C-alpha cells in the first residue's frame, strides 16, 4: 500500500509548525506500516493531547484522540478487548512521562502488546513552550525563564526499569533507522517503546538558541551515536541510538487467555 493511502487527506493541512519533527515521525511510521503490508482496518491509533497527539487525526486507521496523558490506558482497554488489533500509541514527552508517567510504567510492566512512541521534543509545544520532564537542567522555557533546575528522565532507562520488552531510540535525522525500528517494534509481541528525538524549532529551538529545524536535526546527528560505539566510550555525553532491549516475555493478553481457560474449567 502506498503511504498516501494511509493518510486522511480530507483533514489536511496539518497543524504542525514548519520545521516540526513530528511529520518526519509520521512519514517513517507509515513507511514501516507499508513495508509490513498492514491493512488499515487492523490498526488502531490511540493518542493523548499535545502537538504529537494530533497525529491520529491524519491517518486513516481507527483513531482515538483521548485526554492528556491517558492514551496508554485507553489503548489497554482496546487491546485487551480485541487482542487481534494492532495498537499504535504516539505520545509527546509531557503527555507520556509527566501526566501519563503512571500509565507508561504500568503498561510497560504488564507487557501488553502495543507500540508506544514517545515523540520527544523536550517541551510543551501546544501550550507555548513550558519545560517538560525531558527538558533537563539548564534548558530555557516559558516556565523556566531563569533556566530549568529539574533533572530529566532518561526515557529508555525508565522503560527498561518498568519492564518494557522492546526499547529503542532514534531521531528525526535518522529516518531509515527510525522506520526499521518501528517495523521491529510493531512486530514485537509485548510492550514496545520507541523514543524519537523530534525537533521543535518554534519553542525549544528559539528559547534555547538551537537554530533552525535543520540545525537541530544536524545536532541529532552530532550528539547521538549507535549503542556501544567507540565514540560513546570517548564521549559519554553522546546519546545512544538503537535497540536497547528486545526480549521474549509472555504477553498480557495471551496470559489473560490462559486465565479464561482456567476459569472456564473451574480453576
Amino acid at each position: 500500500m502506498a503511504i498516501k493511502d494511509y493518510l486522511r487527506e480530507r483533514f489536511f493541512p496539518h497543524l504542525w509548525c514548519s520545521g516540526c519533527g513530528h511529520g518526519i515521525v509520521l512519514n517513517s511510521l507509515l513507511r514501516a506500516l507499508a513495508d509490513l503490508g498492514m491493512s488499515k482496518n487492523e490498526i488502531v491509533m490511540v493518542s493523548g493531547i499535545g502537538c504529537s497527539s494530533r497525529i491520529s487525526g491524519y491517518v486513516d486507521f481507527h483513531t482515538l484522540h483521548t485526554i492528556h496523558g491517558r492514551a496508554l490506558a485507553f489503548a489497554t482497554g482496546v487491546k485487551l478487548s480485541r487482542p487481534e488489533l494492532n495498537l499504535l500509541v504516539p505520545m509527546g514527552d509531557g503527555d507520556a512521562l509527566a501526566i501519563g508517567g503512571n500509565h507508561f510504567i504500568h503498561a510497560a510492566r504488564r507487557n501488553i502488546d502495543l507500540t508506544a512512541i514517545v515523540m520527544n521534543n523536550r517541551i510543551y509545544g501546544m501550550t507555548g513552550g513550558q519545560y517538560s520532564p525531558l527538558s533537563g537542567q539548564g534548558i530555557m522555557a516559558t516556565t523556566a525563564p531563569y533556566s530549568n533546575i529539574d533533572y530529566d528522565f532518561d526515557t529508555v532507562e525508565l522503560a527498561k526499569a518498568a519492564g518494557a520488552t522492546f526499547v529503542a531510540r532514534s531521531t528525526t535525522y535518522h529516518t531509515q533507522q527510525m522506520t526499521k525500528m518501528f517495523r521491529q517494534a510493531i512486530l514485537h509481541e509485548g510492550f514496545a517503546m520507541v523514543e524519537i528525538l523530534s525537533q521543535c524549532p518554534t519553542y525549544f529551538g528559539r528559547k534555547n538558541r538551537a537554530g533552525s529545524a535543520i540545525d537541530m536535526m544536524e545536532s541529532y546527528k552530532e550528539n547521538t551515536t549507535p549503542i556501544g560505539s567507540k565514540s560513546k566510550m570517548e564521549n559519554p555525553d553522546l546519546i545512544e541510538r538503537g535497540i536497547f532491549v528486545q526480549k521474549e516475555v509472555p504477553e498480557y493478553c495471551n496470559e489473560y487467555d490462559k486465565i479464561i481457560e482456567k476459569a472456564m474449567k473451574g480453576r
Partner: protein
Amino acid sequence: MNENIKFVQGNEACVEGALFAGLDFFAGYPITPSTEIAELLSIRLPQRGGKFIQMEDEIASMCAIIGASLTGSKVMTATSGPGFSLMQEALGYAIMAEIPCVIVNVQRGGPSTGIPTRVSQGDVNQARWGTHGDHAIVAITASNHQDVFETTVEAFNISETYRTPVILLYDEVIGHMRERLIVPKEGEVPSVKRLKTSVREGVDYHPYLPREDGRLPMSDFGGVHRYNVTGLFHDMWGFPSDNPKVVHDLLRHLVDKIHNNVNQITKYKSYYLDDAECILISYGSAARSALHVVDYLRPRGEKIGLLELQTLWPFPHSLISEKCRKAKYVIVVEMNMGQILKEVRIAVEEPEKIFLANRIDGVFITPMDIRNIMRLIQGKGV
C-alpha cells in the same frame, strides 16, 4: 430449591445485573465499599470469556472501559467517592465522544478519604456536575437488591440507547447489606443490544451524524469503518472543529438527547401518594427507612406517602411538581446536607413546604430519626 434465589450483598446483586445485561469488560481499582464488585467480576467474567483488569488507578480504569466499549464490548467500572473524583475527566470524555459505559459509585462519606466504611449519599451533585463544562448525565439508584439488579440492567440499556455514560449511584448500606435476590431468567428483563450501523463497507460512515430519531448507530473499532473519536468538539466525521455552529449544535445535541427524554428515562416508585398530605421523597437505602415510616403511620391514620426516586439525573422536575401539588408538606429524606432537597424546592410551587430529614454522621438514617424530625416539623416536639 430454585437456584436463582440468592442471599447476597447489594454489590453482588449489581454484578448479577451487569452479567445479565451482557457485561463483557470490567476495569477497576480497589476501593471500599465497592471492592466486592471487582472481586466477583474477576471470578465471573473470565468464566464466560469476558475480560477483567485491575488498572493502576481509577483514571486508567475509566479510560480502559471507554477504549473497550469502542470495540463493541459492554463495559463497566465500579468505585466510591475518591475514585469517582478521579474518573470525572474521562467521564466527560465519554459524554463528549458518546461512548456507552456504566460507572458504579457505591457511596461512602466524604469529602476526601472521609469515612470509607460508612454510608453517605453525598455524591449526588458530584454525579451531576463532577466533570467540567455544560453536559447532561444519567444517574440512577435503588433501595433493595431486586431493584439493584434491575437498575443495573437498566443502566446498560440507557447507556446503549442514548450512547452515554450512566452512573449507578448506590451507597454503602445497599452495597454491603444482604437480602434476597431472585435472578430473572434470560429475557424476563429486557436488555438493549448495541445499535450498529447498517452502512456497508466502502460507503462513507458518519459516526456523529444522528439519525432522524436522534440515535447514533455505532461501528466497532476493528471493523470496516475507520473514523476518529475525540474529546474535542467535532463534526459528523468525529474530526475536531471550532466552527461555532458545529460547537453549538453538538453541545445542544449532548444535552437535549437526555433532557428531551426525561420521561422515558425516569423511573420511580410511589406508595400511598393519592391522598397523601405528607409526602416523603427519598432514594437509595434511605428510602427503606422512609418506607418503614409510611408503613407504620398509614394504619394509624396518618395520610402519608412515599415517592421513591430511582432516577436522580436528569432530575424529574415535572414528576415532583405534579406529585407534590396537593401535599401539605414534603420531607426529603437523604443522607447528605440536602442535595436532592434543593432540586425538589426548585420543582414545586411552594418551596416553603419542603423540609429535610437527614443524617450526615456516617450512621444510617432510621425510621425513628425520620419520625423525630417529622414531629419537629409538625410542631409536636421531640
